[in-house]
């Protein structure tokens, strides 16, 4: 169990980490990066799985099912779109 203060520390440090990562990003990477961070919060899938895995009533199970499907969409879609976008950068580099 993550204790109250520890949780707060994790929260604080993660917030700074996120801020630092984006710090001086060139404008051309704003969209891919937004897309990339969109993929990263697809980790919600893990939570949705746990919530669904422990569902007891049919209603909980239904909501859990929707949650897992949505979260999987977030993760997979986020990855595909980001990957496609970043692929452009590879090819652009090589020519000329």
């Amino acid at each position, binding site marked *: 169990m993550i204790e109250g203060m520890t949780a707060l520390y994790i*929260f604080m440090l993660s917030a700074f980490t996120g801020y630092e*990562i984006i710090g001086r990003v060139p404008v051309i990477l704003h*969209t891919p990066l937004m897309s990339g961070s969109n993929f990263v919060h697809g980790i919600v899938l893990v939570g949705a799985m746990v919530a669904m895995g422990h569902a007891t009533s049919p209603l909980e199970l239904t*909501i859990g099912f929707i949650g897992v499907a949505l979260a999987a969409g977030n993760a997979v879609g986020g990855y595909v779109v980001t990957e496609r976008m970043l692929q452009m950068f590879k090819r652009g580099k090589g020519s000329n």
Partner: protein
Amino acid sequence: MDTVIQISYFIAAMLFIFGLKRMSSPVTARDGIVWAGIGMLVATLITFFAPGMENYLLMTTAIFVGGIAAYWSGKKVAMTDMPQMIALYNGMGGGAAGAIAAVELLKDDFHSQTFLTLAVLGALIGSMSFSGSLIAFAKLQGWLRRPLRFPGQQIFNIALFLFAAGCGALLVTQGEINGTTILIFFTAALAYGVMMALPIGGADMPVVISLFNALTGLAVAFEGFVLNNAAMIIAGTVVGSAGTLLTQLMAKAMNRSIGNVLFSSFGASSDAEADSVEGSMKPIDATDAGVMMAYAERVVIIPGYGMAVAQAQHKIQELMTLLLARGVDVKFAIHPVAGRMPGHMNVLLAEANVPYERLYDLDEINPAFPQTDVALVIGANDVVNPTARSNPDSPIYGMPILDADKAKNVIVIKRGQGKGFSGVENVLFFGDHTRMLYGDGQAMVGELIEAIKTL
């Protein structure tokens, strides 16, 4: 097993941060997403072994249903439609966070009041992000054309938000959680997301999507606290803060504050403005325009969303190659918010094999305009509107623009005589040295190419 799970989550969190860091530089961006992807895979697979889990069959089905639908749509969608896909997937994440909260609220098995509060907060933010992102998606997809505004909207929205927050507070303070309150709470939160996004015009959507992205991150982090899942807390918080900063950077690129984007009636004053422009738009045909460019020394191409819509980037690349072969110096001027998202134009032009080094941003290119023979504006509007420099009453006043009007000649490829997304008339189009080339972007650039080839 529990230790193995915790370590896996730790590794996943580390890979996310590492991946995002790699993604923030053009050189390493490509493998950044792969690292983050591995992190996701590790975290997802290990979760199947979490203690006390049931409903595996349905769970796997759900993953496949959501995953395959997203994979298919993500692969199929055109590069130009990426922004709305990001909005859509982001909304799904917010919805998932809301769903987790709903399940937990129904179970009503919280360790303490703090966890209950966090669950409710995450639900509120996640639901807002869900419905708001869907509206953003619908707008960019062209399903919702006009921003919806009505008198007293802000007060209505504030009231709605307070109502949603009040229901949340009731859930937290009420000894026993009741189903009706949960239902009303979620309905209000979802409704607020819709109302929040509806009045915002298309030009501001990137900022809003970025904001919703940050909010989803935060919602995920809150639900992570509830489920005691460190990977969710860390990834969610990192996205929350990174997304907030990204939103600020984007708003700054448009010279506006986030509050201004969310609460001002952008473009509302446009009608009063329409008549004040003097002069007329002067048309030109492709042959003449082609000649002008072929015999120019320096040409600057200014792409905007219209280029993306017309899928003209490949033709533009062809035009560039042709002009370069004739010894014309061709540069691309990329406004920070050209297109629907910062970097949108760069991605499209990169797709069409326009080399990086030919792309210049606002500060680099603006001093070069006075020495430019032809500025070719294709599908851009507000980002080249000199009104932003000259007219303090204009809603876009103060937004940094590309000084295309300072070029010796300006050719504007445009579908018709309509206004930009801001609804403001563009003074540039009425300038003495501006010529309008009316037609579809791709077709017109094609005609330019033909014209230059026959010279």
